């Protein structure tokens, strides 16, 4: 189990993407090169079309959409769908748009990210330097958890949370995200701390520093790079979550993805596709911004973070 995941980790922490291309050196423009570029450009078009369609649809008026030119740039630009998606779109009887969902997502994401990363950092640190009897067993179970379909554990968790009185509350959903972020983040931090020189730890021990002192004074300041990767994984993962939001957050704390889906499937009145697409872009905006800003850091997080799915 451990060996299986250390492989993943190798590509996550040390991306060989930067190592430079390996293919044969091109000498001149050949038919093969044109073919390669043609394939890549066609693929790029396939990947960009949905984004393009989202943007142009959100800027069109409904009469223009009904003409059925999906890919065309709007003949008259309108930003009204964006305003409507943000503040007026209806889910059932409430017509407050996505705004409450956005703030709910912020309220869920910020504490979840902080708590889950702090816990995972302590786990990784303990597993690297302060092993105790059985610690590897717990870690193995945690890694197994990374592969378990959520559906297998959701029902018992609903029952347990109901008993504890935190079902459908903000603390409840934060705990859920902390639980399901733990396997992958612990792995991330364990491999990071495991690669640090043992002498560092021993020197601090000789100086009389204890478990928490070494963690706060030495390990935390060193783990900034891995913490950035962890933040990227968690913010995108939690922001994009739908299943936990719909089951555990409750009506008051509905995250943005759930609200987006509710806005789109609301069948009362006419279906306003431009508002739906504006709402979709707004929901995607946070993870997309993180993706474009973080660049290579995001790639580093992928092999690890993708396990969360």
């Amino acid at each position, binding site marked *: 189990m451990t060996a299986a995941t250390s492989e993943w980790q190798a*590509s996550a922490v040390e991306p060989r993407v930067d190592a430079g291309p390996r293919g044969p050196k091109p000498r001149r423009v050949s038919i093969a090169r044109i073919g390669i570029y043609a394939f890549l450009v066609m693929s*790029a078009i396939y990947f960009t079309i949905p984004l393009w369609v989202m943007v142009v649809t959100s800027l069109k008026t409904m009469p223009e959409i009904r003409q059925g030119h999906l890919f065309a740039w709007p003949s008259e630009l309108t930003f009204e769908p964006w305003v409507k998606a943000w503040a007026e779109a209806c889910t059932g009887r409430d017509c407050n748009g996505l705004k409450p969902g956005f703030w709910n997502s912020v309220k869920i994401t910020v504490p979840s990210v902080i708590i889950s990363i702090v816990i995972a950092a302590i786990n990784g640190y303990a597993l690297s330097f302060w092993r105790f009897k059985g610690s590897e067993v717990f870690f193995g179970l945690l890694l197994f958890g990374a592969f378990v379909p959520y559906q297998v554990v959701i029902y018992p968790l609903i029952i347990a949370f109901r008993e504890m009185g935190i079902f459908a509350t903000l603390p409840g959903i934060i705990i859920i995200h902390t639980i399901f972020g733990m396997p992958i983040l612990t792995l991330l931090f364990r491999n990071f701390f495991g690669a640090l020189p043992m002498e560092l730890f021993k020197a601090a021990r000789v100086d009389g520093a204890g478990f928490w002192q070494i963690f706060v004074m030495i390990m935390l300041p060193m783990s900034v790079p891995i913490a950035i990767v962890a933040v990227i994984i968690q913010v995108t993962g939690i922001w994009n979550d*739908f299943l936990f939001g719909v089951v555990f957050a409750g009506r008051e704390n509905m995250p943005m*993805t759930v609200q987006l*889906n509710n806005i789109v499937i609301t069948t009362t009145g006419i279906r306003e*596709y431009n508002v739906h697409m504006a709402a979709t872009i707004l*929901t995607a905006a946070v993870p997309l911004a993180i993706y474009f800003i973080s660049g290579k850091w995001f790639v580093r997080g992928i092999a690890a973070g993708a396990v969360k*799915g």
Partner: protein
Amino acid sequence: MAQRPRRMPNIQSIIGCIPMIAVSVGVFVICIIYSITLSFTNSKLFPKFDFVGLMQYERLWDTPRWIISVQNIWLYGVLVIGFNLIFGYLLAAFMDQRIKQEDTLRTIFLYPFALSLIVTGLVWQWMLDPNLGIEASMKNWGFGWFEFAPLSNPATAIYGVIIAGVWQGAGVTMAILLAGLRGVDAEIWKAARVDGIPTWRTYLFIVLPMIKGALATAFVLQCVSVVRIYDLIVAMTQGGPGIATQMPAVFVIEHITNRQNAGIGMAAATMMLLPIIVLLGVRGFFQWRSARNAKRLERAAVATGGLS
């Protein structure tokens, strides 16, 4: 790892690990056992320990909705994983050819992975809309014969979901496999060129077996996300038309919430756990075997070293 000495158990360390211990045992052992146990009871909305043997499993495999879910996930899994691996490897191999704008292209191929599956599902649902989507647009351009609205037909709806699944997953596969390709020793390339092997053959028959690790990572990753597929279905088809695009994950959630039949839901969840356990078992076996082989080689090396 071996050189790290065993130390006295430290109470602070155990205190720091309480959340980990609680989650690993509480959630990933007790909750799973609890779920499996409930699958042998006739629990409705709330758990009830009335054991009924395998009745829930019999009912499960008599339910058309579940049968269709299982067929769908196989079809979806085989096609999406297959397409993603082939498309991903093609993209990775082509990206490996000293391409200009490599970073830009990678950014484009990978961005769908940053999106929520709800977003992906809604966009593709809109593009595949039978009245205003791609089909209508093509007809407006004069291609009257063009038909492309898979989601409205029960027989083809699952293929619409597959298109979205490939769009979301091919870029990640590319990124993982490209990282694998960049890890291949340059000497291999030189040797292949000296031997006059065409580039495409090198990629297919020499390099591909060498990046087994990256392939396995990409494969396991895809498998886990296929078994978990829920959001995409909810956003794109809600399991419809009819029950044409039902999936096991949707089946379980519906039965523990709206349908208030936890017993059969947990039987279905237990069935979902099976392929993951098989997958982990197979992977564990291969690791155990390669570790054993490595040990044998080591022993052989020591033995011959002792002789000379």
